[in-house]
Every structure is written in C-alpha cells, then in structure tokens.
C-alpha cells in the first residue's frame, strides 16, 4: 500500500511543519511579551506548564490498550519519524544539559580524575554504526516486542530472565539521572523545591507513557525532538552571532579555539590567578595537616570554635555573629570517619583548584601529560589516552546494547525502513552533537573574556539564583580578597552550564525559558522510553513463551501500565536523594548495558554456534566483572573497607568498567559454547 502510506507520511509532514511554525510563532510572541513587560517570574512557569501540557495532550491522543500498539506502535512509524523519535529517546538530560558543561570543564579529553570531553561526542554517535550495521535490522526481522524477547527466542528462559534483569538495572540507573534533571530544571524554572519539581515532571512523563505505551511515546518524542533542537540551536547561533558575527556556529567556532588558547596562557601567567592558586594550595596543605590526625584536629577545631563563641558572648557581640559561629560548629563533622571523608574530599578539591586554570585542562589539548617528557609525564599521557579510548568504547558498545534504544527500531514497517531509520536517527542526533562542542567553546570564551575580571560588587544575578537551587552547581568566592573575579575563583558544575548559557551570554530571558524547556523535553523523552522498557521487562519479559513464540495480550498491557507507575515512583524517590552527577550515572549505565547485552546479542545474531549455557555464563561474567570493577574501585566502598584508594587496572576509570566486562563476556560465551560442542561431538562419536 505505498499510496496509503505516502498519504500518511504527507499528513505527518504537514502536522510537523505546522507544529514547528507554531513553536516559532509562540517564541516570537513570548519575546514580544517580555519586551512589553511580562515578568520573569511568569516566563519560566509558562514554558514549563505549556510544554508539559502539550506532551500530555499528544500522549493522551495516542492512548491505546491494543498490545501491538502498546509495545511496538503497530510497526508502522515511517523511517524519518522513527529517526526523530529515536533521537529524542536517545538524547537524554545528559546530552542536553550536561554534555556542553562537560565539554566546557573537560576540554578535549578530560582530566585524569574524570575522562571525557570529545569521547562523549564520538562515543554517543559512533555507536549508531554498530546499531545500523549489526543490531537493528536483524532484530527487526525477528518481529519481537522487547530486547529480552531476543534472548528468549535464541537462548531460552534463563537468558531471558537475565536479560530482563539487566534491562531493569541499567535502565533504572539511567532513568534516575533523567528524573534528577527534570527536578533541576523544574525547580530552577519555577522556583519550587527540588522534590516538588520532580513530581511536576513525573506527572508529564506518566501522562505520556502510562496511557499509550510505545504509540503515545513515539509521537510525544517527535514533538520533543523539535522542541529540544530549537532550544539548543537558538542560543548557540545567538552566541555565535554575538562573538563571531555569524549564526553558523558549526562552521565558525574553530576561530575561537586559538583565542581560547591565548586567554588560557594569559590566565596561567596572571599574578592574581597565581595568588588564588597559592591560596588553594595553602588550603590543601591545611587539610593534609588535619588528616594526619583527624581526631585531634577535630577536637582542636571544636574547642577553637567554642572559645570563639564564648569570647563573642563575653564581649556582647551582635547575635548574628554568634549564630554564624554556632552554625559553623554544628557543621563540623560528627566523628572521625566522617571528618576523614569530608576533609579528604575538600583536600582533593583544593589541590585540583591549586592547579593552573582551576584544574581545568587546556581546551584544545589532546590528553594530559607529554609523550616526549619525563617517565611520569609519559605515563600520564598513556593513561589519559587509554581512558579516552576506553570511555569511547563503552559509550559506543553501550549505545548498541541499550534496550530502550533498540526497541525503537522495532516500530518501523520493514527491515529496509529500519536501516534507513538508523541513518535518520544519527542525522538528527548529529545536529545537536555537532553543536555541543561549539557551545562549550563559545561559553568558555565568554567566561574567560567577559566574566573574569568583573567586580564582585556587580556580579550578574544568575550566579546567586543558581547557587540557591544547589550550591554544588556553582560557587564563586573572592579567595584572594581583591573584589575582582578570577578564573580560579569560579567553580561551575557540569549540569548548570547549558541551562545558564542564555543568562551568561546576555540573551533575553525567553531564551532561558526555552533552553530549560528543551532540557525538560530531553529528560522527559528519555524517561518515557526507559520507564516503558523497565515495566515491559518486569511484566512481559518475566512471562514464559508460549509454543516457542513470543506473545502479548491485553492483560499484560494493563499490568505493564501499573508496573510503569510503580517504577516511576521508586525512581523519583531515588532521584530525590541527589545521588550523583547526571553524566557519571548515565555513563555507568552504558557500561553495564554494554557488558550485559553486547556479547550475547552479537554472537547470538551472527554465530550459530553460540549455545544457551554459553550465553548465560557470558552474561553473568560480563555483569560480574563490570559491577565488581565499579564497586571495588569506588572511593566510598574502599574507605568503608579501610583500603587505600586506588585498585584501578591500568588506570581505567570505574565508569568505563565495560572495557573489561565486554571482552570477558565474549571470551566466556565463545569458550563455553566451544566446550559444549566439543563434548557433544565426543559423546556422538
């Protein structure tokens, strides 16, 4: 029915065009309203509520109880639209909110403590080559409903359950990061508490995915893609126009790289910056001194503060000063263990900031260290490069194994459409990913050229506003007391840089609202896909096959919907604990997905010899190696066991644990399968 499907596609094109025009008209209207005096307190909530309402309306119009629609959207989403939905599904809060910030902080390849930088750009796009060439077409040809279905069909029940468990684990970690992003944006945009922000966003997620499953998600994701693309490209183009005189940021930002290098050199040599660094060096030494005997240091601190309170009282000082000293006293660590933990962290941070550029690597320098330098520098270079490659490996392999992404390619009408759809997805994703390094470079230039050197008495408002949301996101402190802002005195969190970009660049507040709405779209779209994957894994993938076939039923759809509700609640509760930075949570879940699924998927699809036992053993070993490496290298657990920090193999960072897990999985599947074949041949002979 090519005629009918062409008419369907034409109808979709018209809707998309109308929606995009409507969005742009709305932005112009808001811009006009801001000029006419609409208060900022209204703009944020308007963007938040209108966008969530819109997604909910699309979601509700796609409601369904039909299993084929609920699981795979009836398998009739045209390649291009599936590409858009995949792009939104794929680009999470980590891509939209954190990536630009991470590129700002990490430059080319990241710091020794946190590898990253351009590895994210290449890793998160390169994985699609594996998806398009190896995974998606063959999985689509099998006409399944979920990724664990493949394990059920190819390897049987044990592998199916294991895959369901893996899908729940990595998607849950991922969804927590998204909900944290939702809370961050909602609370900044409306000024409500972080926890209430989470609930607001959660309502939006549930309205989309609860009622209509995959069908509703697909069309909300298409809408969300348009919002997030517009929200990203407008500030980038605007900043580029301000700095370079052209809105084509992608072509022109190369000019800023040498300028940033010059500014960096100037900052490294500046006496005021060196003063700041010396101050942090002092602070680090002070903490090191305390850490030599934490119990005594703690007692000393406590008695010094008590003395001060007594002295203040004796001289009848202002009550506010006494309160301040009291607060300091109660903020002291409770016991020796917590003192040690707190001070170690503070010492590490001070040491970092005592380095040139406040510990940030030079923006354009590939890898730390020097391949032609001293042995120590050479070792640093090699570790830095290896970490870059390992991270890229985990991100690519993880892309090709994340269940919520692979199921998106089940929804196209044919295998050929699946292949085309992967190409569309990558194209849509690249539009944002190519712009992200540009944004990072433009923001860095803006900070170094304009923000640094401004007076403390006239700091822009947004700094204080962000510090109120979460003091961990931004701290600005006049360390050397000269009332002038130095680069070393600013500490930015990766998660706020993109959201603060419009304010930093002096763009109208409407753009801030738009960027926040874009971040919300990115987080919501990914959370939708992940929640659906988790609830399907819990309900659909724990049920056995019937007569060797995967099957779906109306009852399961209802069960899935309730599982979805429950999972969303648990994820929100976990996110409210503010467990970690978005980007490290996401990277860790990539590692886990890579080690769980990739070896068994590839060998299952391409090697007839892979056996059930081999697959189960390989998955178990892959998970064990990955999780084990992450746990044994995590600083908190090591301190708890009383071990010295470290325990890294070849200096590989724990989030890239999949670098070991994936090869281990391959080796075990191959070895166990080969052993089984050998045994079978011997018994036959």
């Amino acid at each position, binding site marked *: 029915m090519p005629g009918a499907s062409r008419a369907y596609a034409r109808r979709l094109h018209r809707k998309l065009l109308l929606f995009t025009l409507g969005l742009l008209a709305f932005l112009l209207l808001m811009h006009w309203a801001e000029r006419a005096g609409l208060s900022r307190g209204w703009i944020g909530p308007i963007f938040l509520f209108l966008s969530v309402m819109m997604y909910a309306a699309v979601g509700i119009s796609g409601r369904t109880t039909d299993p084929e629609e609920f699981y795979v959207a009836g*398998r009739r989403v045209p390649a291009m639209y599936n590409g858009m939905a995949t792009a939104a599904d794929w680009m999470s809060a980590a891509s939209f909110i954190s990536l630009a910030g991470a590129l700002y902080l990490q430059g*080319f*390849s990241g710091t020794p403590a946190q590898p990253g930088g*351009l590895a994210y*750009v*290449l890793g998160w*796009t*390169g994985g*699609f*080559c*594996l998806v*398009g*060439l*190896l995974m998606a*077409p*063959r*999985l689509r*040809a*099998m*006409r*399944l409903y979920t990724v664990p279905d493949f394990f059920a*069909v*190819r390897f049987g029940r044990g592998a199916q359950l294991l895959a369901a468990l893996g899908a729940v684990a990595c998607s849950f970690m991922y969804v927590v990061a998204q909900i944290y992003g939702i809370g961050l944006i909602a609370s900044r945009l409306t000024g409500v508490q972080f926890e209430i922000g989470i609930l607001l966003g959660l309502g939006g997620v549930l309205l989309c995915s609860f009622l209509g499953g995959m069908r509703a998600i697909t069309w909300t994701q298409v809408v969300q893609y348009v919002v997030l693309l517009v929200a990203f490209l407008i500030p980038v183009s605007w900043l580029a126009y301000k700095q370079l005189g052209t809105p084509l940021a*992608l072509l022109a930002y*190369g*000019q800023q*790289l040498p300028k940033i290098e010059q500014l960096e050199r100037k900052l490294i040599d500046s006496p005021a910056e060196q003063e700041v660094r010396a101050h942090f060096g002092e602070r680090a030494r002070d903490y090191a001194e305390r850490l030599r005997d934490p119990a005594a240091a703690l007692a000393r601190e406590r008695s010094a503060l008590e003395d001060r309170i007594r002295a203040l009282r004796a001289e009848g000082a202002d009550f506010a000063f006494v309160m301040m000293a009291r607060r300091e006293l109660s903020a002291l660590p409770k016991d020796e263990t917590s003192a040690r933990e707190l001070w170690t962290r503070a010492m590490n941070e001070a040491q970092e900031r005592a380095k040139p550029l406040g510990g940030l690597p030079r923006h*354009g320098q*590939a*890898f730390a260290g020097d*391949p032609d330098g001293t042995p120590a520098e050479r070792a640093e*270079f090699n570790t830095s*490069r290896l970490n*870059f*490659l390992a991270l*890229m*490996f985990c991100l*690519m392999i993880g892309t090709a194994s994340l269940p919520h992404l692979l199921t998106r390619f089940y929804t196209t*009408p*044919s*295998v*050929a459409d699946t*292949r*085309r759809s*992967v*190409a569309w997805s*990558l*194209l849509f994703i*690249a539009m944002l*990913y*190519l712009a992200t*390094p540009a944004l990072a470079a433009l923001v860095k230039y803006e900070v170094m050229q304009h923000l640094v050197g401004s007076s403390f008495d006239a700091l822009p408002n947004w700094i204080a506003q962000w510090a109120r949301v979460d003091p961990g996101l931004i701290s600005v402190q006049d360390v050397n007391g000269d009332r002038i802002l130095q680069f070393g005195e600013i500490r930015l969190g990766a998660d706020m840089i993109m959201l603060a970009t419009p304010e930093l660049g002096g763009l109208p507040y409407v753009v801030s609202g738009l960027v926040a709405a874009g971040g919300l779209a990115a987080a919501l779209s990914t959370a939708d896909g992940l929640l659906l994957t988790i609830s399907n894994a819990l309900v659909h993938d724990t049920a056995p096959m019937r007569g*060797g*076939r*995967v099957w779906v039923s109306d009852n399961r759809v209802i069960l899935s919907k309730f599982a979805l509700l429950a999972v969303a609640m648990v994820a929100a509760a976990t996110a409210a604990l503010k467990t970690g930075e978005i980007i490290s949570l996401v990277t860790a879940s990539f590692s886990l997905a890579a080690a769980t699924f990739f070896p068994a998927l590839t060998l*299952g*699809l*391409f*090697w*007839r010899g892979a056996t059930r036992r081999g697959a189960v053993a390989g998955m178990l070993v892959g998970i064990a190696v990955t999780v084990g490496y992450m746990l044994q290298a995590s600083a908190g657990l090591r301190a708890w066991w009383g071990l010295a920090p470290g325990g890294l193999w070849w200096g590989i960072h724990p989030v890239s644990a999949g670098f070991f897990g994936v090869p281990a999985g391959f080796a075990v599947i191959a070895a166990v399968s080969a052993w089984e074949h050998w045994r079978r041949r011997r018994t036959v002979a």
Partner: protein
Amino acid sequence: MTAPAATKKEVPGAAWLRAALLLLWAAASFGAAFFARDLSQVVAGWPLNYWWLAQGGVLLFIGVVMVYAWWMGRAAPAADDEDR
C-alpha cells in the same frame, strides 16, 4: 519469527560491505583518537584533531550508516522484508 536470524540467507557481499564499513568506523574513531596528539596541525583555521573528533568523525559515521542503508536497500529490494 522464531528462527534465529543467523540461519537466514543474506545478500551476497553484505558481510564484506559490513566488514569494510566497520573497519572504516574503527579507524575513524579509535584510530584517529589514538593519534590525536600527533594531529594538532591547523588546517583551514581548525586544529585538525579537534575538528575530526568534534565534527569529521561524526559526519563519517553518518556516511557509513547511509551507505549501508542505501546499498542494502538496492541489493535486496524487499528480499529480507518478510512483512505484510
């Protein structure tokens, strides 16, 4: 549906195309990143290594996926599409 995909016949040459494209993919990502420090020459205003890792590589990935989709679509017109 239940038959593992590995048992299905494939278009001749598809495996070779995949291998060649994957080789290109690996060279563009891991290969280029490995030698990134040595590629810091400035070409047309851009440091080459930064440009490749931030833009060139991604464009090449798009090319890889597009070539595969186009070639397979041409070589196997609906042969592997057992769909209604």
